[in-house]
């Protein structure tokens, strides 16, 4: 009895000593979903790499990285997300918060983090309001930084830039001054502002909008829409899709041997499983993406390869939690402290070469958008492989292909 008691005391003392030598990073994400899985996987990669190298140097002392996994369940419940945030701050005594996905939930999570003056690196939500808060009330919201993705207006800039590149290729190949674009946006709220912006922007890019189609996000048949798009003579099908309709569209475009090529946002096409899900018919479908085996930075290719080796699939954009931890490591080592108020100015001045981007921040603590740095990449499915094609100046990019006419 006495021996068990003494052992318990010794173990408790040992664990306390260990806890004193760690920096705690809370990884907040919807862990039952692919976004949360990638949040966690990216963070695990960073933790293991840092700890293997001895830890983070804080004022001459090496400290280990400790991760706290917090399932926010934010896709289903905003209160659950706020509770998880409070739990990691007040119960688990996290030093830094990283993650978030659903913008409505992240806005509420941001409030809790700012109440406690905790640095919160966003790695999932695109809404611009998160950064606007920093500009409106700097003293309160200065602890918020966006790591991935770029804010939603900048995502649109990336899409337009890639579309411009595809349009130029079309003009040369088809000898057509104004390529015809059909917009296919799933019928959900988030696509509305993008559709409006596209309708205003495309004519300025010397592209003709032949129509807008809005199937359900879960539609399994888009034959009617594709027939109409073919009749309208579209050269490009601009997709604004996050749901499974992205698979239906890719498969049925292939089945119909359509000459138009699909580009835009197609979340399903970002996944490795897309080719199998379209039964091999999703050739030429292209989308905006974050990770591929191309040298966005010198760290991208080794990270993607290591990730694939460890998790047997490619990372999605939320795996940039890896970059978030590495940024904090660099900032902590530079400042020699984990004090949030001292780290904020260091982060503000930092240009961090990560795996997903070369990150630097503006006055809203949003990523400064730049092609080849933070604008993301364009990828296209070509004969069963997801091939990166944009920006062409980045090493490792391959040509964008169009169906034979």
């Amino acid at each position, binding site marked *: 009895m006495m021996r068990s008691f003494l052992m318990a005391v010794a173990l408790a003392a040992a664990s306390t000593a260990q806890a004193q030598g760690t920096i705690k990073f809370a990884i907040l994400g919807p862990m039952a979903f692919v976004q949360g899985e990638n949040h966690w996987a990216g963070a695990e990669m960073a933790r293991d790499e840092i700890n293997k190298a001895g830890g983070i140097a804080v004022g001459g002392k090496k400290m280990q990285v400790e991760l706290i996994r917090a399932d926010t369940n934010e896709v289903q419940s*905003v209160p659950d997300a706020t509770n998880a945030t*409070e*739990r990691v701050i007040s*119960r688990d005594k996290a030093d830094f918060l990283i993650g978030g996905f659903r913008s*409505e939930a992240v*806005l*509420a999570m941001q409030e809790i983090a700012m109440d406690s003056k905790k640095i919160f690196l966003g790695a999932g939500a695109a809404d611009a*309001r998160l950064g606007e808060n920093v500009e409106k009330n700097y003293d309160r919201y200065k602890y918020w930084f966006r790591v991935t993705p770029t804010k939603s207006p900048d995502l649109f800039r990336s899409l337009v830039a890639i579309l411009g590149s595809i349009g130029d290729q079309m003009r040369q190949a088809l000898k057509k001054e104004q390529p015809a674009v059909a917009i296919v946006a799933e019928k959900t709220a*988030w696509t509305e502002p993008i559709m409006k912006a596209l309708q205003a922007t495309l004519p300025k890019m010397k592209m003709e909008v032949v129509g807008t189609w809005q199937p359900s996000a879960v539609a399994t048949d888009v034959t009617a829409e594709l027939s109409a798009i073919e009749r309208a003579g579209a050269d490009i099908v601009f997709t604004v899709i996050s749901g499974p309709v992205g698979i239906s569209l890719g498969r049925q475009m292939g089945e119909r041997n359509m000459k138009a090529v699909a580009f835009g946002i197609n979340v399903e096409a970002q996944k490795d499983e897309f080719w199998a899900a379209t039964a091999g018919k999703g050739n030429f479908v292209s989308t905006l993406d974050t990770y591929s085996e191309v040298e966005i930075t010198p760290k991208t290719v080794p990270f993607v390869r290591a990730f694939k080796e460890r998790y047997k699939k490619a990372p999605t954009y939320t795996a940039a939690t890896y970059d978030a931890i590495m940024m904090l490591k660099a900032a902590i080592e530079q400042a020699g402290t984990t004090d949030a108020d001292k780290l904020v100015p260091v982060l503000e001045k930092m240009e961090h070469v990560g795996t997903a981007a070369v990150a630097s921040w503006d006055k809203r603590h949003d990523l400064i958008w730049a092609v080849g740095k933070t604008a993301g990449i364009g990828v296209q499915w070509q004969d069963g492989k997801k091939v990166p094609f944009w920006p062409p100046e980045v090493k490792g990019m391959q040509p964008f292909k169009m169906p034979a006419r």
Partner: protein
Amino acid sequence: MYWLRRGWAELKNEVFVLPSRTAVLAWALALLVLPYVYGDPYVLRIVTLTCLFAIFAASWDLLAGYTGQVNFGHALFFGAGAYASALVSLNFGVTPWVTVWIGALVATAFGVVVGYLCQRLRGSYLSLATLAFPLIALGLLFAFPDFSGGELGVSGLRRLATTVTANYYVAVLAMLAVVFGLWLIADSKFGLVLHAIRDDEVAARASGINTPRYKLAVFAVSAFAAGLAGALFAHYIRVAGPSTLETALSFQVVIWGIFGGAATIYGPVAAVFILYPLTEWLANFRAIGELRLLIFAVIVLLVLLFMPRGLSPWVRDRIETACPRCKQRNRAWRSACRLCGAPLENRGRSAISEKLKSP
């Protein structure tokens, strides 16, 4: 001194005579002293949200449990209160102490409209019709994003109080006041009429009761309470978003109501106080945390399988018994009624529940 003596006498004769009332008093006192005993911000946050959802659940019970108007779209009132309070507070700079009441009144207006439109519907038709209203409201919010904030809602709201403890007390006091108020309504003559409408509306009308007016009134009262809960919730988490109108929230309140025991007011409150912290507690365990919704569903199914009238009536039947002569409730272990002295035969089990079980 007189009031002290009278207060003690009331407690002794009205509260301590029944274990259920004693438990409710102990629970209320525990809530009031919790920040002094255990001031962990995380725990206070969970209890704060539990209190707000308890108001919401009790408001559903008045409408569905007492009056039989089973509302599958109760989140409409919660969301209406949240959005109305948030928009007025943000756009006009009005203090949330005023706007939460505006939110509740806007929800009341929604309640009257829904009640009016659904007046001729009964049973599953009523439930399905009410299910549509929050979906329509969501559609309208998305159609006018400049006004409503679209799918992100309205953020950056002011809190009612600045400290964790003060926010906690706002929620606890609001919950105790609203739930006690709803219980008083349910226990009044008005509540008896609601019972009559639920059991046989035709008979109630034949007895001269203006049932449409009562149904409208109960829709309004229920919506007011739900709207107040929604407004308090929005200012607590500082965001009023589409999640306050989601179908999942409407079904959540039905689960709380049925799990705790419909037509009791305290039953759904007890259900929220058990289920909400339980699911949150399960989230602490990595191995099962991500399965907590599944575990939640299994617990609810088991309770409903073995306690078809809900948890709180089941517990109450085991700790209290009804006098066969005067129908007053007594402690289960008493041998004679505390009021009329009649012998209590069914000790440990309610005579009423026995009667209900017999063919």
